[in-house]
């Protein structure tokens, strides 16, 4: 078990390193010259050189990457070019609201997609299945921002039920008010990740139902619904753990677009702003932070999976001579 975890940790570190190189390279390739923001025409050549040195722009990209990495490992992610504040600090300040949004939509999508997928699989090719599968098709085919826009049109423009933007109404700070602000972004985010999960649970349920152990359970006189929940559910849900981990990607990226659309004050909308301002340190820190959330999601899912599945757990124990 420990061996496996260590191997996974090593993998996480390699991926993070590569993400950092990748994003550093992208920023390096960016056309705009960072120094242009600090150097004005009336500066002397000496002053210009000083600014360049201060910004580290006189060194080679490799050297600068190395320096950035050393600093980053010490927790220093650089200062925002536009706000002149520590980049990571600005992001972590906004992280809780993003996590609130991501966590809630993950929960909502799980609570809805598992029963829907199970029922669709159990009632394969009936009208219920067609309705659920149709809904899943809709969810995976609609751009999430567009679904969000439609919600705004319906609930804000036409019905005036829900606020379209932000996290709090002006001057109000109650959980109920926040919850009201959350409904639309959460639903929007949940929809797209639900679609893939419903399809996955459905396909898995159908696959499990055709397994021979289901026939054997039937031959014991177990009823269909009992088989579904006693036998099939667990075997269907095990792979879902991995899917949830992979879903972190769509949540992280989804938060980006959805936060911008609904004006949610999280790290996604902040990063979007930073891109507009070409604030490289923020972008870099944001990529690393969300890359980390993503990779950790996969990591935790892998570990959980090996704990949840008796075949894997015992297999490892046996391999370790326990």
């Amino acid at each position, binding site marked *: 078990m420990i061996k496996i975890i260590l191997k996974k940790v090593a993998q996480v570190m*390699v*991926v993070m390193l*590569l*993400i950092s190189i*990748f*994003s550093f390279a*992208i*920023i390096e*390739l*960016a*056309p*705009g010259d960072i120094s242009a923001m600090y150097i004005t025409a009336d500066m002397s050549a000496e002053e210009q050189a000083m600014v360049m040195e201060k910004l580290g722009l006189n060194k080679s990209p490799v050297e600068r990457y190395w320096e950035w990495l050393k600093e980053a490992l010490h927790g220093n992610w650089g200062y925002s070019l536009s706000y002149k504040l520590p980049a990571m600090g600005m992001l972590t300040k906004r992280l809780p609201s993003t996590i609130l949004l991501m966590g809630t939509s993950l929960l909502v999508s799980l609570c809805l997609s598992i029963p829907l997928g199970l029922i669709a699989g159990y009632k394969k090719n009936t009208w219920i299945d067609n309705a659920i599968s149709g809904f899943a*098709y*809709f969810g*995976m*085919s*609609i*751009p*999430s*921002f*567009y679904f969000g*826009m*439609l919600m*705004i*049109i319906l609930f*804000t*423009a*036409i019905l005036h039920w829900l606020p*379209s933007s932000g996290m709090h109404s002006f001057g109000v700070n109650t959980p109920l008010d926040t919850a009201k602000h959350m409904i639309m972004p959460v639903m929007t985010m949940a929809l797209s990740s639900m679609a893939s999960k419903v399809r996955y649970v459905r396909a898995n349920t159908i696959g499990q139902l055709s397994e021979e152990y289901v026939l054997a359970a039937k031959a014991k006189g177990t009823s269909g619904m009992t088989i579904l929940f006693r036998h099939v559910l667990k075997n269907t849900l095990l792979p879902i753990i991995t899917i949830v981990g992979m879903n972190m*990607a769509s949540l*992280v*990226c989804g938060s*980006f*677009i959805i936060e*911008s*659309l609904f004006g949610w004050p999280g790290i996604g909308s902040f990063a*979007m702003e930073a*891109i*507009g301002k*070409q604030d490289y340190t923020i*972008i870099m820190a*944001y*990529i690393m932070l*969300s*890359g980390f959330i*993503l*990779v950790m999601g*996969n990591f935790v899912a892998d570990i959980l999976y090996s704990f949840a599945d008796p075949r894997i757990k015992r297999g490892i124990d046996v391999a370790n001579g326990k």
Partner: protein
Amino acid sequence: MENKVVINENSFRRMEKKEKDLGVVYRRSIWKDIKKEIKANKMAIAACVFLAVIIVACLLAPLSPYDPNALSLADKFAEPSLKHPFGCDEFGRDYFTRALYGGRVSLLVGFSAMLVTVFIGTTIGIFSGYIGGKLDMLLMRFTDIFLALPSMLLMVVLNSFLKPSITTLVAVLSLFSWASVARITRAETMSLKERDYVIASRNLGAGSVQIAVKHILPNILGPVIVAASLGVASAILTESSLSFLGLGISVPNASWGSMLQGAQAFILDRPILAVYPGVLILLTVLSFNVLGDVLRSALEPKIVK
């Protein structure tokens, strides 16, 4: 029953010669399977018809009497009418014409990105799977990393620095989606190269390239076709997201995604402007997804309904 043979002396003679019953042979041809599956599925027919209409309409866009970018303040926010079926936008541009031109961009980006993705993915996949060994390991680790990258994020960052154009969009989209195609084709190649006919052909002196092109490529066609159909869907979807964030092709040209970005500003006053391009994206992506699923089930070996 049809004419029964009369029982006579001859009936109890030993049979002279018997035609050998070789059992049942199920002949399979990819295109026949696909055609049959699509014909049997109403959703698939609807998807095909819709895509055909959309593609033809977008190709015929220049026949429209309006210039998609011509401003006409007199027609600002014109309601839908016979003259302007979708109405006009905030600059009085004919929205129907713009939607057709936008569709050209969206579809062009979708198809080109799919082609590039499939080309890179299949090449790397076959190469990696066929040659195997260290090279395979190296390429697959590389692929893993691309699968683990927060792609949407990096696409946004990359696109924000590059000069937005159709070419850069296609390049960026393909860069982040070839990896899954490579995985699929590699797995197929690995299993195919151990088949007897491939081994036989190798023993008969066929070169690697010859085997890859003649034996492996045709046999991985199925999964690649499926990946291609789903690939168009996801490329159009991602393009629309990028355009919506203002990182798509530049004004005054439009894609469906950037039309939505424009419509967002008037979402509370003129929600109808957001409906047309959005529904077009939804239906197009939906059609490609349905088609991908139908293709997948058509190419799966099965006899049970």
